[in-house]
């Protein structure tokens, strides 16, 4: 055996939590936490501009639900000892700018942004559910949480449509651009 090939696996000091796939769960929780954090900031931006308009209460209600989501992921992050993404300060600003920017395009613009983001998030949660459902017993709690959140994000998406999101000028361009941004954000937050 050549000297350099000694394959020593240095044991991590972390406790193994009942044989879950730690790297996969790490990524899932990190990216979901980043997503809910970003969603919070988007709604905050929208409220800053449209808070006193007629859609204010609607946006506020959706924002409240996102706050609950973020709180849950904060708890999960501590429980599974997952590191948050380094990009959080960036999502802080980018989310707010996106929310405020879309709201400056008017109520329909804000709703279009909501539709785009919520559609991305729902699809993303569905992908995660597909991954986790391969072992439903091991990931029971996480699956339950993600399923519930996916349903609520879908509701937000529908609310956005109800409020004339599609009537926004340049709706498809706006939607595509935002969804591309969301895909990039998801890709980066999973890794860094």
């Amino acid at each position, binding site marked *: *055996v050549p*000297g*350099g090939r*000694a*394959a*020593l*696996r*240095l*044991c*991590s*000091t*972390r406790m193994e939590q009942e044989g879950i796939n730690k790297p996969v769960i790490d990524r899932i929780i990190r990216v979901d*936490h980043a997503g809910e954090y970003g969603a919070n900031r988007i709604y905050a931006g929208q409220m800053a501009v449209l808070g006193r308009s007629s859609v204010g209460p609607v946006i506020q209600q959706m924002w409240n639900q996102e706050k609950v989501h973020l709180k849950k*992921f*904060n708890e999960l*992050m*501590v429980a599974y*000892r997952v*590191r*948050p993404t*380094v990009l*959080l*300060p960036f999502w802080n600003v980018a989310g707010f700018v996106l929310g405020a920017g879309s709201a400056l395009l008017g109520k329909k613009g804000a709703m279009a942004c909501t539709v785009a983001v919520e559609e991305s998030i729902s699809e993303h949660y569905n992908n995660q559910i597909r991954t986790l459902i391969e072992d439903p017993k091991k990931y029971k709690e996480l699956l339950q949480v993600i399923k519930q959140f996916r349903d609520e994000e879908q509701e937000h998406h529908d609310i956005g449509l109800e409020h004339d999101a599609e009537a926004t000028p340049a709706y498809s361009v706006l939607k595509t651009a935002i969804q591309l941004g969301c895909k990039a954000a998801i890709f980066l937050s999973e890794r860094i």
Partner: protein
Amino acid sequence: VKCQHYPPARALQASAALRRASDEHKKEPLTSSSQQHFDSPPAGHQPEQEPQGPHPSYTGQGGQESEDYESEEQLQHRILTAALEFVPEHGWTAEAIAEGAKTLGLSVAAAGMFHSDGSELILHFVSECNTKLSKLLEKEQKLVQLGEAEKKPIDEFLRNAVEARLRMLIPYIEKWPQALSVLLLPRNIPSSLNLLTSMIDDIWHYAGDQSTDFNWYTRRAVLTGIYNTTELVMMQDSSPGFEDTWRFLGNRVADAMTMSNTASQVQSTGEAVVQGLMGAAVTVSNAETSRAVT
């Protein structure tokens, strides 16, 4: 005296040999032949089996392994643990590993499994120290949870944890600078960085850190800085019982606490200033509006 070291290794070899035999349908009475080896341990004969013996069978016939079957990794762990005893004398070198292998009744050629610069030995040692620290912190946490101990304030907790971890270096302190330089070799950096970050994360976890924002990174960066600088100070320290090092550690931890308090004060002052400005802006705009009306 040496005979006492042989049986465990022999037993493992015997059972491994037995398993290979049954798998390969050999008809030789291996049990009796290994018995003979127990009775008269010839220095030259058995050791030759050791390095080659484990090798072909580690991919495991059909992946079947029973509890007394030692994997290559476990064997390496045992050799390295045994080698630590010889580090103060020989340094982090192949000589120490060879001596360690000898105490386990293996050939000195077993040291050939490892790199000549002692990388694996050092990384193994660091990993073992981290595991010991983890267990210690977990035990303390249990005592606090059972109400048998007081929960320490954060600065005291961090100080004690870092001190406990650094004290594990004391028996090897003469040769530790050599180890540090080996850990910084580009080849070893991924592993040594991984060990360092998981140790720091462990300390913060048991200190009760629950941050989920950028503070997660700030805290770990600060503690890593404290640990590394204290370690370097320890290398140069010749005071009795390393009291200079522990004093340095205390000061650095206190600095970190002050810095974090200052940071939060700055933040709340900043927020208050922003609120004040917003209030002023609203007042001015109201005044303008009312003046425009009249």
